[in-house]
């Protein structure tokens, strides 16, 4: 981020995404990296908000309690409105997902920090878990009837030969776009911010022009961070709704 590049002459907008292990020289399967550290910080931050926020259980909430309650109610409503009453069974999972992504995105806005969700490896795993969970729920609820999801009702048999592959492919496209959308948005935003910061560092003449842009873009990135967490979550709800109610 900005403070990284100010001192240096060399500006590398992608350096912020490097995975650096702490206790070893190479990244192995179990090494503790900066990504691991920030994931832990994200989890601790989220846990702290909800533990401290819900501790007093005041009728008139404190600010922290309000924040926690608002988030809870917001996602609760989203799940109920999108996936129906049956979807509420899965509310804890969806809420956890939202909070983790939201905190990762927002903690990534802290200068010198690491954005966990800017890595496709992380977002792809999140999307894959959603994909597998939703598919398993679909099969558990509907059994083999779940396959009718891929065959729009009322289609003549010859056309099914064409439509079923299309439906199946589009079903498998969903986790891919689901993960790329979040990861690419976070990465592109942070890289752009770094490039702008690089302008600031390398050409002081440009400061009056670049600094306002930089400020506006930082605000915009906060917006993107929240919206992308929201989008990932609501898409999860929509996929869950499809599996629960068989859309076609």
């Amino acid at each position, binding site marked *: 981020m900005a403070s990284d590049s100010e001192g240096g002459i060399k500006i590398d907008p992608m350096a912020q995404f490097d995975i650096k292990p702490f206790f070893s020289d190479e990244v192995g399967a179990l090494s503790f990296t900066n990504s691991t550290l920030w994931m832990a910080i994200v989890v601790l931050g989220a846990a702290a908000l909800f533990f401290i926020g819900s501790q007093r259980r005041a009728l008139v909430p404190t600010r922290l309690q309000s924040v926690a309650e608002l988030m809870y109610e917001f996602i609760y409503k*989203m799940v109920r*409105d*999108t996936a129906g009453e049956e979807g509420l069974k899965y509310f804890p999972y969806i809420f956890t997902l939202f909070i983790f992504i939201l905190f990762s995105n927002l903690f990534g806005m802290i200068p010198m920090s690491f954005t966990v969700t800017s890595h496709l490896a992380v977002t792809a795993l999140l999307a894959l878990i959603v994909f597998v969970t939703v598919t398993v729920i679909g099969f558990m609820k509907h059994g083999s009837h779940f396959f009718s999801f891929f065959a729009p009702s009322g289609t003549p048999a010859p056309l099914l030969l064409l439509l079923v592959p*299309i439906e199946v492919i589009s079903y498998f496209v969903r986790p891919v776009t689901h993960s*790329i959308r979040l990861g690419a*948005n976070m990465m592109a935003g942070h890289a752009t911010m770094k490039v702008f910061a690089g302008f600031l560092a390398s050409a002081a003449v440009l400061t009056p022009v670049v600094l306002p842009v930089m400020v*506006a873009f930082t605000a915009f990135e906060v*917006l993107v961070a929240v919206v992308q967490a929201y989008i990932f979550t609501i898409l999860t709800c929509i996929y869950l709704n499809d599996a629960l109610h068989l859309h076609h």
Partner: protein
Amino acid sequence: MAGDRPEDADQANAQRDDARGKSRDAAAPSGGEKSQDADLSARIEAARRALEPEAGPSAAEKYNSLTLAWRMTLELVVGSAMGFGIGWGLDSLFGTKPFLMLVFGLLGFAAGIKLVYETAQASSRNSAMSGRAGGGVQSAKDDEGAGGA
């Protein structure tokens, strides 16, 4: 490229605030009158409905045309790529090199089109609804209704 989106968000916020202000105005003067119970309760109901939507669904969807375009492109590209990938895999399995690749590439493209179409449908439903309060929530309810049917 990104400059106009926060502005749109502001507009959306302003509209929402506006709606809240109006509903408060509408509800306040009717508070004292007892003779018009039905009218009053109707107005209270209207005011309550106007206050109902929280920041989130509709606001998020409103300034999201860039996200929408990006999403559609992604769906189309990923769909085609996945089709080609499946075809390529099956080709090398059966030794029918170019044939299945083409077939599944086209199928994947069709799948991409289908997803783009669905995305467009969802977003047009949203924007049609956002004239009234709570576009996102409303359309989500529509989805649910269609799913249940």
